């Protein structure tokens, strides 16, 4: 009980107070405490990832085995997990050619490298004018066979090239590896799709918010329309003819006023409330008044 209750509370108190005071003490060892603490947190969180991964596999795997509702989505999740793991740790791809000598047929070499790397011939010529100990062709192949094909083509014309593979680690960043294929061809489009849905959700949410039901909704609608029109050239065009004494009704000016004053005032009020809430919650946690986050009443 002592280890589960008092020790964590003491750690929270001591660390909380030190971190709080460190913001006011620029001298070492307090100066970089925040950075160190963040790094410690990242390390702990990285180890905790294993727990999350195991939990994901357990629940999704169970769904597949029991053929529960939507089990095929779980199957996709499990397969995606293992596929990414395999390409991240076992099959990296990323074969490339390292040029030792362009050989006697430089125009052919430049033409072919230009085609595979999608760069201008002049740029290829400049890049391979000085090779040194060896210069890689900026094109990675998923398989050894892919690299071998280009190797044969260039070697047959007298170029001295060598097939190499990207080192572990860089295969996560470079194109032409299986991992990057998953990332750029599956993960990124899926993420973009989810993000793109936001546009439609904003439209449906705006429709509901702007529906005239009461005075507040009407004011919101009016302010929304002024902001939207005032921010595009149409706003300036529509109200450009107004005489000077009515310039305050010029839509770009009006929208700026709404944005700078009523909107900023409301946003700051919320910000002050949030700031106070954070101070209050932090104090309650540091002082051990709020203990329920540790599973205690």
């Amino acid at each position: 009980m002592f280890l589960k209750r008092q020790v964590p509370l003491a750690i929270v108190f001591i660390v909380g107070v030190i971190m709080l005071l460190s913001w006011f003490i620029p001298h070492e060892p307090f100066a970089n405490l925040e950075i160190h603490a963040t790094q410690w947190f990242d390390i702990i969180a990285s180890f905790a990832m294993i727990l999350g991964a195991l939990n994901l596999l357990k629940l999704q795997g169970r769904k597949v085995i029991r053929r529960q509702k939507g089990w095929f989505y779980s199957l996709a999740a499990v397969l995606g997990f293992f596929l990414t793991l395999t390409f991240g740790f076992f099959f990296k791809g990323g074969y490339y050619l390292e040029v030792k000598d362009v050989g006697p047929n430089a125009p052919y070499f430049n033409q072919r490298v230009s085609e595979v790397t999608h760069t201008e011939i002049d740029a290829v010529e400049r890049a391979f004018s000085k090779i040194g100990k060896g210069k890689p062709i900026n094109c990675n192949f998923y398989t050894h066979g892919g690299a071998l094909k280009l190797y044969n083509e260039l070697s047959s014309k007298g170029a001295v090239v060598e097939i190499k593979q990207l080192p572990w680690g860089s295969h996560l960043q470079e194109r032409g590896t299986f991992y990057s294929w998953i990332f750029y061809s599956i993960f990124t489009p899926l993420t973009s799709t989810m993000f793109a849905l936001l546009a439609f959700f904003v439209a449906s949410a705006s429709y509901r918010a702007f529906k005239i039901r009461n005075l507040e909704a009407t004011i919101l609608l009016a302010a929304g329309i002024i902001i939207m029109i005032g921010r595009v050239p149409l706003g300036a065009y529509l109200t450009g003819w107004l005489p000077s004494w009515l310039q305050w009704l010029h839509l770009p000016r009006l929208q700026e006023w709404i944005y700078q004053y009523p909107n900023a005032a409301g946003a700051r009020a919320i910000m002050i409330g949030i700031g106070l809430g954070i101070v209050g919650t932090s104090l309650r946690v540091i002082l051990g008044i709020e203990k329920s986050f540790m599973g205690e009443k």
Partner: protein
Amino acid sequence: MKRNGFFLILGMMIGTVAPLLGALDPVAVPKEGDPEGRVVVLNANPVDQAFRYDIFQKSEEEQDWNFIISYAHLDKDMHFDIDNGVPTRFKVAAIDKDLNVLEEAVTEPVITEAMWFNTKRIVRFITMILFSGIILYYIRKARQMKEIYLRPIAGLKAFEEAVGRATEMGKSVLYVPGIMDLDQVETISGVIILGHVAKMTARYEASLNVPVSRSLVMEASREIVHESYLSEGRPDLFNPDMVHYYTDDQFAFAAAVDGIMLREKPAAVFLQGKFYAESLILAETGNSIGAIQIAGTGSPSQIPFFVTACDYTLIGEEFFAASAYLGKDPKLLGSIKGQDIIKGAIMITILLGVIFESLGFTFFKDIFNL
């Protein structure tokens, strides 16, 4: 005549020796009043015929000079960063158009030190002490007070209603404690509120589903839900898999939670924690399945989305006060009372600031610039 000759010779001697002494005469001193140290102010005199000036730096531990920057003109008070506590010299070299060194000179070693207290943050330090004192005072006072009045918050009153509705409909309660880790106060607050919601689901025997996007949040949430079920005397209803992990990725997590909403159609959805762009995706999907939705966040930019798509929204401080409201612990309620007093003080300060500034008195604003 003799006297004039003496001055002539003296003048010639000074003229000959002066270049050897270094007309550049660079001086490096630590920047005064800089709490974090590190900054050195370098000054040097300009040299005739100089095309540019190269500045070099070398600490006592280093063998070679490190080139820092070239200037066309020597400005007054040039600032450079060095490591605190390490004696460092600067070398200024005047270069002519043909890139010949006209003259170069080295400063005395300079050492910077950080202060033990950042005097520029004194007002904030006093404010922190004051705010903490007020909150602690009200926490202490709350123990003696019979009843503490706090204004009713519709969103918090709806918590029980939402869980009750889910129970009546025989559907589950979905609780999302944000998408960030435990290093965010909003996540901690979301996890604390989860404890109260879990007590309600245990009491009503409603099914609870808590998808999380961070492993540490999963562990903390599991512990808190377990404790809630124990405290309500229903450990039999607790299942560790109620709290389950999906992914750290923002939109993948949003897709997973949307999937749960569309497949299981929970009757009540709680979105309590730190959210970003996925907030509207989650809230609109929850809205489309007709669930009663209660959101709460400390992310100002997401509040409008939640207000639009959810039935109730805990705005800013309401979200952080939720735990105290739901828990009814006098100590926690006392801290909320303290926060309200501070808010009143801030409002008065802002009002005073507006009045003084409008009248042209700047002393009040200057206090906060310290």
